[in-house]
């Protein structure tokens, strides 16, 4: 069976900026695939090429074995695209927007009404369906946009940062909805720069950085590959630097401790990488106690996807985001997005 989405060696540049340098990924039918990366990493450009909104400079894109470049119309029928920015016509009601959506996907007139009702029910829009979208809240707009993207029952639903700017409740609603959709057989490709989102939702993940896929696999595979557990230690609520340095020197010598970093942004807390599943916490506390240092707080956790990103790129997602956003050619991108 052909993969639901297959992208091979995708390249796309805007002017002097290489938005996508080398992206290859395969999304299997019926899974949620997360594309994780900082803003400006090339996620949206990848999706725009997939959804026939941008022409790649090189590379191959297939939807269930159909070449997007050769058969754009067939590909469009199989795809549902929910863009990052919700673009609704504020003068239309939700139902009118769905009617327009149904017509541009050529749904047969006989079943349109039922299908629209179903979409409205699915996303809990009954109360608002006949109000103008201009009066909707951000969460409502996103739900209507989702309903529109799903109306023609696409094989592959493509969502670009579906929960950016949403309140936590709306975010949970969207997550739950995407899981249900996956469980009923729809393939979902979702981009995000939220670690928790990808971690919570995605069956498999590709991490993308500066236009290149740097890691891919299931979230737990990726974490296992980084290895070790993470320990966050606070000696005091706000630890004096010299005390943190002293603790660092002590802890570095413990056999199971692989690395210690002082996080000055978090009141000089200590971030340790320790051997996986080790009984690290009690040993650390005893070592501190013996040296006359208190423990304000200590916790052990498995590595997060941020640690995966950190290990692959040498910087955290947040740092990368700041760096990338200063390098983007926003004008060229805007121009491209306006097609």
């Amino acid at each position, binding site marked *: 069976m052909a993969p639901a989405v297959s992208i091979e060696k995708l390249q796309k540049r805007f002017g002097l900026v290489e938005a996508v340098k080398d992206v290859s990924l395969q999304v299997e039918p019926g899974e949620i695939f997360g594309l994780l990366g900082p803003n400006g990493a090339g996620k949206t450009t990848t999706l725009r090429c997939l959804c026939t909104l941008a*022409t790649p400079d090189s590379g191959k894109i297939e939807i269930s074995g159909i070449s997007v470049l050769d058969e754009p119309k067939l590909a469009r029928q199989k795809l549902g695209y929910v863009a990052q920015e919700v673009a609704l016509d504020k003068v*239309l009601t939700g139902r009118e927007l769905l009617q327009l959506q149904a017509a541009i996907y*050529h749904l047969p007139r006989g079943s349109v009404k039922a299908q629209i009702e179903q979409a409205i*029910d*699915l996303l809990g829009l009954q109360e608002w369906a006949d109000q103008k979208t201009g009066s909707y809240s951000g969460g409502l707009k996103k739900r209507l946009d989702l309903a529109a993207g799903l109306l023609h029952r696409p094989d592959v639903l493509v969502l670009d940062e579906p929960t950016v700017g949403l309140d936590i409740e709306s975010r949970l609603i969207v997550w739950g909805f995407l899981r249900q959709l996956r469980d009923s057989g729809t393939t979902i490709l979702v981009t995000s720069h939220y670690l928790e989102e990808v971690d919570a939702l995605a069956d498999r993940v590709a991490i993308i950085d500066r236009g290149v896929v740097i890691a891919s696999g299931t979230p737990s595979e990726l974490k296992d590959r980084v290895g070790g557990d993470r320990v966050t230690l606070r000696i005091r609520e706000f630890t004096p630097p010299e005390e943190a340095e002293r603790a660092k020197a002590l802890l570095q010598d413990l056999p199971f401790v692989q690395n210690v970093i002082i996080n000055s942004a978090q009141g000089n807390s200590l971030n340790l990488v320790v051997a996986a599943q080790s009984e690290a916490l009690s040993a650390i506390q005893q070592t501190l106690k013996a040296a006359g240092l208190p423990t304000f707080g200590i916790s052990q956790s498995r590595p997060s996807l941020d640690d995966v990103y950190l290990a692959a790129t040498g910087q955290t997602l947040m740092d990368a985001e700041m760096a990338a956003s200063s390098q983007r050619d926003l004008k060229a991108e805007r121009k491209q997005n306006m*097609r």
Partner: protein
Amino acid sequence: MSQTITPSSGNLNGSQAPSPAIAPSATFSLAEFSQETLALTRRLFIQLQRRPSTLVAGIIQPVMWLVLFGALFQNMPQGLFGGSQNYGQFLAAGVIVFTAFSGALNAGLPVMFDREFGFLNRLLVAPLASRFSIVLASAIFIATLSLVQTSVIIAMSAFLGAGLPHLLGLGLVIAIVLVLVLGVTALSLGLAFALPGHIELIAVIFVSSLPLLFASTALAPLTFMPNWLKIVASLNPLSYAIEPIRYIYTHPHWLLGSVIMETPFGAVTLGLSLLILVGFSTIALLSIRPLLRRSFT
């Protein structure tokens, strides 16, 4: 946002069998084309119904033209402008054409805003039978508005003493307006796809509309113009819409072979004028095709 979404399980996509709703087809289907064109047109009319100010302004403006501009030259010597009995009669044709023209010239603006807000992407990711449906929907919409405006102008001109052409003449006036609107709408949409943003589009509309008015026979006949302007006005497609309408207004017994205008390049008959107009619109429509295809279709 407080209620939860509880889809009755299994009715999401059923078994996810390829939905029969969409027969996979890459070939052009007229049924699909008319379905999407109708829906896009309907959207424009819903917008108009809920925000009618453009239509109201679009009717007040030409009436102002007729009343104020007509009054300005009311005392001009009779016969100065050819066969017209008064300037109001002369002006009617100009106002009809210029009103239709400016409406069509603005047709690109909503499309430009759709582009800027990302709404156009919604249409471009959809399997449209042809992106020409976007153009056709705008053209149908603008043409309907123009017909409403034209009717008001004709009625108002009749009230102001310009008289009324016969039924066949009226039919031809409407046909001329429709052909012009189609061509200019196409050009405007072409600009909406080609220019970077609405600021640039408004600038183009701004610098092109009044010069095209003055360099046409809308306000004064060719015979009244210096030679260089005669040449410009004879190259201006608007003249080829204005002169036939004006001739129909002043000559109840018009024929397709009647000479309606003496351009520096030769005499132009009513029939030739119509032919030139149709040619202009056809070229305009054809010339925007590559723009619609810009990202691949």
